Every structure is written in structure tokens, then in C-alpha cells.
């Protein structure tokens, strides 16, 4: 009987506590700075082109092979009359978010700091009805950073 009364007392004591649950669709949990969502590409705002040169380092290091990278000669390179210092630049880039396991390896192997893990999504914004829609192409991958939606992060 003593034990049961103690259980009751424990239950009663929780009435005095502040609730920890959130009214989910209205209020969201604030994401920590380091939050790791899916990888996105970064936009060089000075040169007006992506940082990525299409060197295939992330593609080779990806454990689940969710990336496809194609490289091209940079049309804006100095040798052809442009202003950019990048001889090669990314042509096409696809990441299949349905396969990505968010391991952060692509960020670590990148030689040009061109890719990072997004830290603004809470997950549900990316839900789609068709799996094929999860494949992101280059403009989609760059759009987050170009529009300045990314929060500052620390993991770089």
C-alpha cells in the first residue's frame, strides 16, 4: 500500500510542473545551430557562381551513392575573357534526398567548402507525394544559400 501511495504522490507532484510539450503545428521547436538536415550547395556571392567545381570528391565519398555530379569548363574563366578564377565549374548536380543518410561525409571531404548540411529545415517541408520529387537539381540545391535563408552554422 505504501508503494502505491508513493506512486500517486509522484503523479500528483507532476501537476506542479510546467508542461514540456508543444502545440506542434502552431509552435515549433527551435533547431540548434548545428542541426543537420540534407546537404545543399553554397553560392559564391562575389563571383556570382557556385563554389562547387564538380570535382567528384563528395560523389566518391558518399556511402549511399545519392549524388550525381557533372563538370564543365567555366565559361566565365579568365582565359575566355571572364573574371572567374575557376577553370572548371559544376554543370549538373543531383542529390537524391530519398537516399541521403545525412552522415556529413560530403561536407568533410569537400576541398572547396562548397557543400554544407542545411540547418533550417524541420523536415516536413520536404515531404512529397512521389519519391522522384526528392531528387534535387542544381538550382534547387543552390536556392537556399542564394536567397540567404541559411542560418550561420559552426560545423565548417
Amino acid at each position, binding site marked *: 500500500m505504501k508503494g502505491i501511495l508513493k*506512486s500517486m504522490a509522484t503523479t500528483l507532484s507532476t501537476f506542479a510542473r510546467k508542461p514540456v510539450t508543444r502545440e506542434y503545428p502552431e509552435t515549433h521547436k527551435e533547431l540548434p545551430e548545428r542541426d543537420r538536415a540534407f546537404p545543399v550547395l553554397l553560392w559564391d556571392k562575389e563571383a556570382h557562381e557556385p563554389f562547387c567545381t564538380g570535382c567528384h570528391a563528395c560523389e566518391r565519398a558518399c556511402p549511399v551513392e545519392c549524388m550525381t555530379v557533372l563538370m564543365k569548363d567555366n565559361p566565365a574563366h579568365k582565359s575566355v575573357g571572364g573574371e572567374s578564377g575557376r577553370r572548371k565549374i559544376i554543370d549538373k548536380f543531383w542529390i537524391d534526398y530519398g537516399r541521403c543518410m545525412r552522415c556529413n561525409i560530403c561536407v568533410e571531404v569537400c576541398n572547396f567548402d562548397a557543400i554544407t548540411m542545411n540547418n533550417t529545415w524541420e523536415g516536413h517541408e520536404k515531404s512529397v507525394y512521389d519519391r522522384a520529387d526528392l531528387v534535387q537539381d542544381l538550382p534547387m540545391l543552390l536556392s537556399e544559400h542564394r536567397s540567404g535563408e541559411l542560418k550561420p552554422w559552426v560545423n565548417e
Partner: protein
Amino acid sequence: MTNALQPSEFEVQDIMINMGPQHPATHGVFRMVLQVDGEIVKDLIPHIGYMHRGAEKLSETMDFRQGIGFMDRTEYLAQFNAELGYVMAVEKLMDIEVPERAQWIRMILCELNRLSSHFMFTGAFGTDAGVFGTSFTYAFRWREEILDLFEEITGDRLMYAYFRPGGLAWEVTDNFEARVRQVLELSKQGIKDIDGLVTNNEIFKARTQGVGVLTKEQAIDWGTTGPVLRASGVQMDIRRDEPYLFYDQVEFDIPIGQNGDVYDRWCLRMEEMRQSVRIVEQCLTKLQPGPIQPERMPRMLRTPPGEVYIRTEAPRGEFGIYMVSKGGNRPHRLKVRSSCFANLQSLRDMSIGQYVADAVLALGSMDIVLCEVDR
């Protein structure tokens, strides 16, 4: 009425009951075929393998950095402990010295992971024992605090991929120590809550005492490890017997049970949680600033040929990694010695002669993770 049938003339047949693979009480996709006489279990045949993803075979195609993510997914309630085994195996093969700070942080995270895993146990086992929902909400309230801390450090709630051969992937947050202390205070409150709610409750005691008994001899015979073995009265803990990290520099007790029943396993895990809090508190006092990766780390990890077996004490028992390397950047063979797989074999001995409902309780008391059983 002399020709009426006497009871003894009936042919009594046992019934075979199929439980699972989709059953809320089997903690995942686990199927057991029960041979029952009325309500009494006569025989139990566990069928495993429904969750087999081939993680071991898959790891052979992954280099040493890529394999870490799959260890998270093998043992999804004690991810840091699983990662630790893997990276320690690579470190031993490559003969890398891990900086002190990295080791202390690893130890803190592993012990906090043990806490969160045991909180999960208290919730899930409460559901098995009939404290439906209540224990889950109580346990998850405190588990969430620990997961929030992990998310702040690693950036992910469950699949951390934070340990690296040689140390850690990146430095912990600036307010790490203060946050850990805060989480510890909350965890202490959580342990007190769950203890008060369940442990001394007479109804819970009546339900669990004397159920699912595993004697000392049976526990050793079946090769069980961790809380299941200790609850049967064998004082064996790899953290003390073969210290890895800095477990030889901290003080902690190894609780053991008396009867080896389900109630003992519950009490033992509650005590282990208190010991984990104690270990983390000691680690925090010894944490010094310093590097978290060795000065010279090769960009591509390559090991010399060799083989190594690393055993660590995960929340569910001995988590072993057997790694064979033939040189190169990926393991030639990786074998995960899963604690749950060995513990699960003792389920038959625990359940025979008990009620069907008690078999569920015995299964729950082992705190199985089916992902780890099948890999």
C-alpha cells in the same frame, strides 16, 4: 451413466500460437511460436531475421569513415556505444593514439547514451507490464532532454555519426559542461520519478517478481551479457574487467541482482542509471581542454593487414566488433557481436512453464533492439 467419457480419455493437444512478427509487444519484428497448454507456455521457438539488412556485409563495401553511419543504424538506441566499438577497432588496427579530451568526451556521451537507452527501457517495459502509456510519457520526458543535448552537439537526434577513428568529428559546443550538468540534474529527477512511480509499487512487484527467472548457470550457459547476466547474480562488466577509454580512472559500482527475475532486471537498470550519472559527474571534473583529433591523421584511412576484436559494454551487454583487414581502406570482414542476439537465446528458458503474458514480460525485460539482433 457408465459410458460417459472420462477426462483422461480425451486426447489433450497443445496449441501452437504464432506471436508476431507484427505485434506491439515484440518490440519490433520478432516472431515467436508458442506451444501452449491452456495458458502455460510449454515451448517457445524464436524466429529472428525479419529485420536483416545485411549491415555487416554492407560494411565490407564501405571505407572506415562511411561505415560509422551504419553502426548507428545497427544499434539505434545506443548509437554512441555502437560507433565506439567500430572506431576503436579501426584505431587498434591503425595503431592510433586518441587524445585524452576526445576519450573523456566519448565516455561522457556513451554514459549519457546508456541513460537515454535505459530511460527507453523503463518506458517500453512499463508498457509490457501494464503501466500503459504512463511510464512511456514519464520516461520520454527525460529521455528527450538527453536527446536534445546530443542534437546540440552532433546535429542529429538519433543517427549521430560523431565519432571518428582518432577522435571526434568536431569540437563540442562551448557550453558543453554546463549543459551536461543541467541534463544530469534533470536525469536525476527523472530516475527519482520513475523509481517512485513504479519500482516500489506493490502491483508492479506482484506482476514482476518471480517471473522470467534465469538462474546463474543458465545465464552463463546461454552467453548472456549485460544487465540480464548481472541480474542473475554474475558480477561481470567489461568496463571494469577490461577497461577501455578511461573507465579504470573513475569509480562506479556494478550492481547485481539476487533472483534473476524480471523485477531484478528492472531494479538493476535503475541502479545502473544512477551509476552512469556518477560516472559522468567524475568525467566532467577530469575534462581538460585539448585537441580532439591526433595531430597527424591521414586523409584516407588505410589499415595494415590484421584482425582485431573489440568488446565494449553497451547498455544491453557486450557489444563486440570483429574486424579483419587485408590492408586497404575498408574492412575485409566485419562481424558485430550483438548483445541482444545472445540474450534473446535465453528467452526459451525464461518462458517455459510460465503464462503467455509472462513470456511477453520476459522478452520486454531483455530490452531487445531487433535491429541489433538481425543487423
